[in-house]
């Protein structure tokens, strides 16, 4: 039998209108913009090795983004999407969780994937849709995924991964394996119905999910002010009976600590948590748009000084763990590696034509097999029209 269903609430005979912004949610920050630590702030435990790995990953991603954006402009790949300015949010959070925790990302969290060990070749093979791509060249560039790295393959439809994360985490909980799911999404995607479904279900089932919203101020051209009238995403947690943390997404130490705490709550207290990381999308949405059409240079400049990588570097320098020279050298090494991988991936052939029908079902249907046979027959007839695959058709 169900227990008492109506919340116990106090009674008032005076009409009380709850104001539109009833919760005050401060933003957690450890590093000031200049890379110094707030007075009295307690930093998370973080050793040199981890700190340098985080920094190194930030550098790699910045370089990768820059180079591949350029590669798209040169027509070498069809599409790219950069995470410029948001590296701290994805890398800081990925660093704070266990390798066996599942990550479900939106598409701007290449930092988390790199932190997990996706190699420069892995990135390139996906970006070039070649036969070495784990995804077999089926999705647009940046739709990475790797079972070995517990990083769910990215899907374009926005928000769909949010209720999926609730289900995935519920499965983890039933298995009793003390792992959680970290799911990323933008403040734009948080408008989707799937957001509502996912948060509510996770709260009801006490599924160990960290809902990580990157509030970067824009959904393509749409500013957050036209996305919602509330104070960002964090106060929505209260509506679901869920805990929330708002963190400076450009402060990798704060993100790291906030995510550690969220993970602790998810697994020890057995409750999902919503994190809202405040940041700014420094680049355009993707290679398909030019942000000067919808925002000012001044606004961008205001955010440039909050750069998460420079901030972290200053902190590392202060600790004596990094120098300007070493940073520059590392960057140079990343550049070489990226360029080399790019050249290599470019020459790898497209997936074999037989792969056109695989993985739709566990095994192709009879109709699919007939379609493949007819297609091959056709390619044999017109090999010049299908240059990417004709060679593979005997």
């Amino acid at each position: 039998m169900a227990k008492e269903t109506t919340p116990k609430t106090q009674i008032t005979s005076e009409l009380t209108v709850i104001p539109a912004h009833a919760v005050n949610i401060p933003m957690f920050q450890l590093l000031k913009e200049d890379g110094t630590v707030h007075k009295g702030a307690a930093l998370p435990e973080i050793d040199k090795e981890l700190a340098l790995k985080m920094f190194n990953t930030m550098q790699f991603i910045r370089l990768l983004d820059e180079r591949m954006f350029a590669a798209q402009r040169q027509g070498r790949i069809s599409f790219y999407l950069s995470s410029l300015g948001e590296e701290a949010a994805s890398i800081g959070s990925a660093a704070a969780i266990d390798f066996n925790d599942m990550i479900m990302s939106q598409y701007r969290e290449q930092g988390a994937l790199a932190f997990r060990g996706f190699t420069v070749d892995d990135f390139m093979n996906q970006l070039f849709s070649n036969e070495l791509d784990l995804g077999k060249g089926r999705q647009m560039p940046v739709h990475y995924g790797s079972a070995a790295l517990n990083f769910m393959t990215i899907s374009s439809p926005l928000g769909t991964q949010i209720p999926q994360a609730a289900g995935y985490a519920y499965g983890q909980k039933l298995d009793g394996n003390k792992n959680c799911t970290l799911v990323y999404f933008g403040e734009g995607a948080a408008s989707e119905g799937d957001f509502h479904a996912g948060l509510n279900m996770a709260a009801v089932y006490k599924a160990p999910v960290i809902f990580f919203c990157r509030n970067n101020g824009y959904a393509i051209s749409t500013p957050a002010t036209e996305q919602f009238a509330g104070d960002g995403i964090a106060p929505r947690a209260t509506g679901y009976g869920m805990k929330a943390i708002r963190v400076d997404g450009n402060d990798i130490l704060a993100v790291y600590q906030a995510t550690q705490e969220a993970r602790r709550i998810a697994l020890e207290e057995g409750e999902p948590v919503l994190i809202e990381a405040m940041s700014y999308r420094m680049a355009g949405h993707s290679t398909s748009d030019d942000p000067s059409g919808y925002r000012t240079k001044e606004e961008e400049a205001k955010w440039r000084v909050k750069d998460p990588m420079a901030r972290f570097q200053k902190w590392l320098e202060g600790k004596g763990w990094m120098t300007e020279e070493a940073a520059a050298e590392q960057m140079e090494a990343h550049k070489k590696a990226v360029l080399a991988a790019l050249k290599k991936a470019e020459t790898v052939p497209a997936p074999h034509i037989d792969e056109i029908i695989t993985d739709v079902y566990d095994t192709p249907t009879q109709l699919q097999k007939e379609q493949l046979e007819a297609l091959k027959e056709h390619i044999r007839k017109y090999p010049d029209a299908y240059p990417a695959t004709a060679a593979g058709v005997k």
Partner: protein
Amino acid sequence: MAKMNLLQAVNSALDIAMAKNDKVSVFGEDVGHFGGVFRATSGLQEKYGRERCFNTPLVEQGIIGFANGLAAQGSFPVAEIQFGDYIFPAFDQIVNETAKFRYRSGNEFNVGGLTIRTPYGGGIHGGHYHSQSPEAYFAHTPGLKIVMPRNPYQAKGLLLSAIFDPNPVLFLEPKRLYRAAVGEVPEDEYTLPLGKAEVVKEGTDVTIVGWGAQVEVIEKAVALAEKDGVNAEIIDLRSILPWDVDTVAESVMKTGRLVVSQEAPHTMAFGSEVAATIQEKCFLYLESPVMRASGIDTPYPLAHEKEYFSDHLKTYEAIKRSLNY
């Protein structure tokens, strides 16, 4: 063997699946303690606990989104959508996610463990929001399997296949027959093949194809035709996707005539695919065009349900049109 109605057969399949593999879970609106509005999940929460049989919040897109995640994690979720008419909020999760999960990841991940159960069809005074036959809406979706049983024996055997099939399956149950269809059903586990049609009755003069609850209607129509001396072959598709072209084509090559009888509104119902494919495969054998007996091109009405419905009389008339062409 035991006498079971279709609901009991579904319940028995779920029970066996849950007993067999503890990664099988069953959920949906009112599915927990109450056992679902049709009681298909009765007793399962008591038996397997609240963690494996439970109510969901009222959000179909969430039910399937959650189920996709759970399946990706390695479970065998059996998600119930309370009525087929309410599956559309989950359309994106099914068509863009479920069906493309394995493909888009190059088989890094899959939701093959997922089964979606939902009651479909009319005949219960449900009007257009408790009567739809939505199979055709999903049949344009490579990556999905769609299965529709016609009786208790099929319901149990096909559902057990669906649950453990390594592909996501949409399982549409004929709610009109939930209690009306009663038959002998083995109490133990057994499976029936997905993607394979069943020749329900052999015949020589004309082939009649249907699926789910419509097969019963066809049987009545064929009984009428028999009085006219017509010996019809009846084929139950059982699976809509992938569907068994060969069995139908073989039959039509023998009979030379084909009638499809279906509940959904005419235009773009699944019979269109059957007709399009068979006229191509059997062109030289067809003695008359493939005829379709369907619902009228309107939402499913309430007061005019009888008139809308492609009943045995309309199917019988279609058979005659096919024969007298």
